[in-house]
Each structure stands twice: as C-alpha cells, then as structure tokens.
C-alpha cells in the first residue's frame, strides 16, 4: 500500500511522547464521566459504556486479541467487511483538546480541530490509534482527503474515493466498485477471504444493532427524560470501539431498563432541543454539559457521531455476494447527510422530520470552527428552519473549554427566548 513515491523519498514520522498529555486526557475523561454520573436518573447499565469510553480495559483487550485492528473515519467505512475479514474496526475520530497542539507540528493550524485532534492521537501515541495496523479513510472533506498522506508515514492507509454528488446511478455505481476494491484489499491485508455465509452473518448482526438502536430512539420520542443525551452519545460512541456482539448484548439490557423507566410518568418538562452540525465526540461534550446544566435537554441529534452512525443498515435484495456488497455500498453512501456532498436537501428533510417527531422547541447548530462544510450549509439550513418558525441557535466553537461561559450565556438567552415564545 506504500506508493513508490514514499519509497523514493523517505519521510520520518513525527512521534512525541508527552506523559503530561496522556495524564491530562485521562483526567478530562474521568472528570467528565464523574460529571455525567451525577445524574440521579442515570440508567444503571451506563456503567458498562463508561468503561468502554474510558478505554483502558478495551485497549488492553484489543492488545491481547490476535485480530488486527483497523482504524476507520467518518460514516462511510463498511464495518461489515472489516469484521468479515476477521479484523476489528475502530472509529478514530477524536474529541480530545489536548492532542491538538502536538498535531500542529505537522498539520496546518487552519483545519478543523477534529482532524488535528485525531492526528495528534497518533503523534502522541494516545488511545486506539496506536493499536491500528491499517487505516481506511474515505475522502470526505478537504482535511480528511489530505490526512491520509500524513498518516501513511506511520501506517498503511486505504483511501476510499467518495463521490461528491450523491446520485443513485453514477455515484452508487462508482462507490460499489470502490467497495469491491476495498473488499479485495482487506482480504489481501488480512489473508482471509470473505465468504457468503460470513458476510450474511455480519450484515444480519448489523441489522440487529440498528434495529435495537432504533427502538431506543423511538422510546425517547414519548419519554425524552429516560436518558440524557450525553449518555445517549456515550452509548453510540462506545460502538466505535466495542465488540459488536457484546455491545448488542449490553444495549439490549439498557433497552429493557429504559422500557421499564418509560413506563413511569414523564418527569421531564424542560425545553427539548435538537442538536445538529459538526460531530460531537467524547470528551468534547461542552455544549451538552451546558444545556443539561441549564435544565434543558437535547432529545435528538443529527450528528454523524450520534444517531446517523447507527441508524442505517444494509438491506440486500438477495443474499448473493454481489447483492450484499451492493447493499453495503448503498448503505454507506446514500442515506448519509454529510455536508461533504453537494446538496444539503436530505439533511434538511431529515431535520424537519426530527423536529416534527420529537416536538422539538429549538435547534442548536453546532459549528466547529474551520469546518467550512457545516459552515457553508448553515445559512441554508437555519433559514429554512426559521421559516418554519423553529428557533435556531448557531454555536461556533472549538475544542477548547475557554468559551464555555460565553456559550452558557448564549444558550441561556436562547432558552429564555423559547420560554417567552411559549
């Protein structure tokens, strides 16, 4: 997977080992989890997700496993195929503020914090990035497009050529071919072939996972107070790293608990908010912390690190190899609402549906500074929402905690406005 160019011109990977940063990260993680734990209404099963998100146990587990770990990014990497070749996918998109500065030695300062933070994890040797022996990187935004070049100093990288325009015939055909190439490359990498039976098993397991997730999502419609959104995102994001079978097992327990809880009277009367925009990844829960401190609740999100990740599943028309690959290609392209595609219409439609279904009082548009794509879409999305008389608040922020107070003031005012309206 190394290009001849990379053989001709040797590049040295930048590696820093700063104990302080690792300590800081650990501190931030535990502090945040302790903060979330304060909620007396918290489901008991969440303890399991805390463990996965904290990472130590799962990292050790992965180290001891014989299976290779493959790092993925974004929404578009077909995890069924990675499990199918006997490897374990780990989604690397990171939310650590601490690893941003180390990454700036290589990457420019003017790209989105998510990319810098993720790359910083490799520079510092933090977390799951260190365990990976291959990276699968779709070319979504400009930052991610070029990131592969830098990661290839450390690790082999498979870049997936994602179409820019989401159309059924052209783009899907192209993506279908790309997925087939990915399959053969993964088979080459791992030395195992994907059989029909095997892939069918994984697709069905992923279907089960999505359906389970959907039923939790449905529960929140009628009774949003049963789980806070921080917990919800932790549940989703532990699936970045966890063994899928165990995740389904534990989430089933969580679901049962939530069903029990939802039978009680709806205890939540605060403002119901929807959060959309750039991904919010643990431990960058700044906005959610503020919202939940103020007595409001995010009841649903439209984030690629949240609902979008587990919502869709592959549904093959027929269980032949080609049919399954086609369904996987479709699943990892067409339902996406990523702004890296030319139009935002699917996203707006989805937002309006969510607003309707959850009877949301307001929408928070989370905009990571230097993410041009979400910024470009902002005007169109907020305009349409405002035309429908849905209050929207745009929060333009970074990973740092500096502006927490400022965000708090703005959200307070926003909630005040919603209250006065009602």
């Amino acid at each position, binding site marked *: 997977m190394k290009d001849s160019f990379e053989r001709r011109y040797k590049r040295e990977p930048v590696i820093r080992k700063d104990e302080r940063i690792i300590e800081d990260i650990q501190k931030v993680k535990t502090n945040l989890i302790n903060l979330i734990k304060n909620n007396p209404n918290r489901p008991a099963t969440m303890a399991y997700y805390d463990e996965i998100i904290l990472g130590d146990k799962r990292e050790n587990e992965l180290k001891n496993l014989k299976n290779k770990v493959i790092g993925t990014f974004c929404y578009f990497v077909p995890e069924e195929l990675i499990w199918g070749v006997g490897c374990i996918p780990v989604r690397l998109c990171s939310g650590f503020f601490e690893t941003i500065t180390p990454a700036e030695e290589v990457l420019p300062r003017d790209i989105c914090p998510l990319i810098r933070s993720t790359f910083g994890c490799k520079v510092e040797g933090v977390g799951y990035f260190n365990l990976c022996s291959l990276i699968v990187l779709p070319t979504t935004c400009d930052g991610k497009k070029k990131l592969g070049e830098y990661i290839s100093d450390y690790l082999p990288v498979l870049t997936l050529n994602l179409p820019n325009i989401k159309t059924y015939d052209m783009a899907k055909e192209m993506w279908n071919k790309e997925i087939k190439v990915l399959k053969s490359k993964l088979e080459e990498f791992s030395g195992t072939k994907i059989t029909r039976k095997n892939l069918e098993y994984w697709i069905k397991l992923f279907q089960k996972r999505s359906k389970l997730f959907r039923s939790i999502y449905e529960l929140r419609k009628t009774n949003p107070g049963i789980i806070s959104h921080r917990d919800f995102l932790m549940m989703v994001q532990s699936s970045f790293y966890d063994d899928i079978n165990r995740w389904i097992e534990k989430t089933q327990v969580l679901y049962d608990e939530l069903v029990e809880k939802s039978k009680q009277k709806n205890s939540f009367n605060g403002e119901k908010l929807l959060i959309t925009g750039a991904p919010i990844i643990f431990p960058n829960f700044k906005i959610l912390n503020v919202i939940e401190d103020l007595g409001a609740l995010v009841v649903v999100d439209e984030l690629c690190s949240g609902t979008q990740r587990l919502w869709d599943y592959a549904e093959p028309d027929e269980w032949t*190899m080609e*049919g399954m690959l086609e369904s996987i290609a479709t*699943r990892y392209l067409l339902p996406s609402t990523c702004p890296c595609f030319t139009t935002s219409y699917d996203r707006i439609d989805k937002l309006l549906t969510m607003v309707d279904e959850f009877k949301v009082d307001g929408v928070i548009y989370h905009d990571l500074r230097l993410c041009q794509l979400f910024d470009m879409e902002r005007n169109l999305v907020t305009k349409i929402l405002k035309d429908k008389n849905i209050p929207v608040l745009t929060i333009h922020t970074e990973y740092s905690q500096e502006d927490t107070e400022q965000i708090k003031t703005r959200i307070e005012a926003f909630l005040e406005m919603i209250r006065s309206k009602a």
Partner: protein
Amino acid sequence: MIERKITFIRRIVQIFAFVLIFYGGWLLALKHIEIKWWVFEKGKPPVELNYDNPTHTQPLQTFLPIRSCRFAGTTGVFRGCMMFFLSDTLAWLPSLKNILPHLLLLLFLIFLFARFWCGWLCPIGFISEILYEIRKALGIARERLPKLVRSSFKVIGVTLLVSLLTTSLLIASPSVPWSIRKPLYVATCQICPSRIITPLITGFPLILNLTFKSASTFLLVTLFILLVIFSLIYAFSFIFKRSWCKICPGGVILSFFNKGALITKEKDIKKCTRCGICANCCPMETTEIYDEKDKRNVDHRECIQCYRCVDLCPEKDCLKVKFLGKEIFKS
C-alpha cells in the same frame, strides 16, 4: 419468523394463481367448452382453423389481464390472456353485444389492480421469478440492464402493442391479400414466449408449427424470429430480473392504468431518508420511488406492484399500499 413478509405472502398468492391458472381445470375437473379452432386433446387431429367460431362467442370464456395462456390446454381454467382477446376482437370485429360483457369485466379487473396482476398473479411472471430464485440459490449475481436498453425496452413495448393491435385490425379488412392475413392472425400469440413456456409446463405438445397453406413465408419467418428473440429475452430473466415483463405488451396496457387504479402506493416523503434500498430491490429496475420527494402518490407506469420496496423499506410507515383508501401493507 418470516423476515420478508410481503414477499412471502406474494409467493403464496403466486403459487396459488399459477396452479389455478395452469392446472385448475385438471384439479377442479371443470368441463371446458373447447375453443373449436384449436383443439389440443390427445388423439384428435387438430381441427382446421374455423373462422366461423371466433373466441368471443365461446361461453364461459374469461379473459384475465395476465398471461393466462390459452396454450395451457385442457388443464387451464382461463383460456386466454387480454392480449389474445383484444387482438381477436379487433380481427373479427364482432357485434358489441357479444364482446361487451368480456370487455367490461376486463376493464373492471384492470381498473381494480392495474399491474398488480403482473406482480402477483401472472403465471409467466411467476415462472421468470422462479428462474431468478434458482440463480439466487446458485449464488450468481444479478445484473441490471444498461440504461439505454431499459429506455429502449419502454419504447419497444409500446411499439409492439400498437403494431400487434393494428395488424389485428389490418387482417379484418378484406382488401388485404389472404397470404398476409392468414399468418398475421393472432400474431400476439405467435410471438409470445408464453407459447413455448406454457406447453412445456403444462405438458401439452409444443406447437411450433403455425404454417398455413398459401401464407407469406416472409411474414412467417419474421414472426418466428421475433418469437425466438422474445423467448431469449424471457430466458434472460435468469440474470436480469423480469426482463420480458419490461416489454410485455399486455403489461404496457396495464401500465397506463397504474396511476388511478384502486390499488395505490403512497410514500411519506418526510420519513424517507433516501437510503436507496427501494431502488436496489426493484425487479423492474426503476428509481421513481427513490427519486420522489414531492408527491405522496408514488404510482408510476413501470411498477409491477410487487411491493418488494415496501417490504424492504427500513423506515417505519414510510411506504404504504392502499386499496380503496384502506391500508393493506406498510413498511
């Protein structure tokens, strides 16, 4: 647990319809009044073409808007399809009184279900689905027709329908020479792949020889070549789903009624996430339901109403099938 419920129900209905249409006469021991000019009974020589006994005068003769082929012989219950009925009627131009009951019944049946007949009841469609079920079991991949071929199939279907009906009208006129009129008689059946498939299945002798004395060889050869081409297209439904159904002239007639029939499909455009599953699973390779983002009603001409998309749609209540405003199926 049956995962794909609608497909399962459809298969049962299809099997039932298939057995009834092709073997019903045998199972139910119905006494048929034979079509006199074409007797298939064993031991008897085929009766000469008897122009005095056109089909429509036969009592107990029901025509369905599907390929309930008359070549099913004595075991078949319904002795001819809509195309046969129409071309025969046009060829003989009988009195309105004779054909009106048949015509009204036919129109009523079409108006009820439109291409629902294709997807759920047509035995020839069912056999082509069995072909691709075999392929599935063998693990061979499905192919899709190239766009150009598909759009030309649409044109071919309409052209075929128009030309078949006009030839039927043509032979009604006495000014046309006999040598042309004779081979063109019920050209619909002569080029229909069902003419080969149905006798194969029902166990009646293959009737390939349609030569009449003093007929134009050129026309006969042309018709035969068309028959071979269409049979090949039919055979290709092994890898291209329902390839014959994309040009079937009977289907073309039904397709005009697809919009406005009593059975309709609706899409809740708000719930649709455009995940593309409906476009992937469509046996007719259409993308209309996937593309639709404005209207509630998603009926379109090519849909054979198999409701595979409704079955596989992952969004709850997004796609619905309604009959007389009542919900029958939903995703």
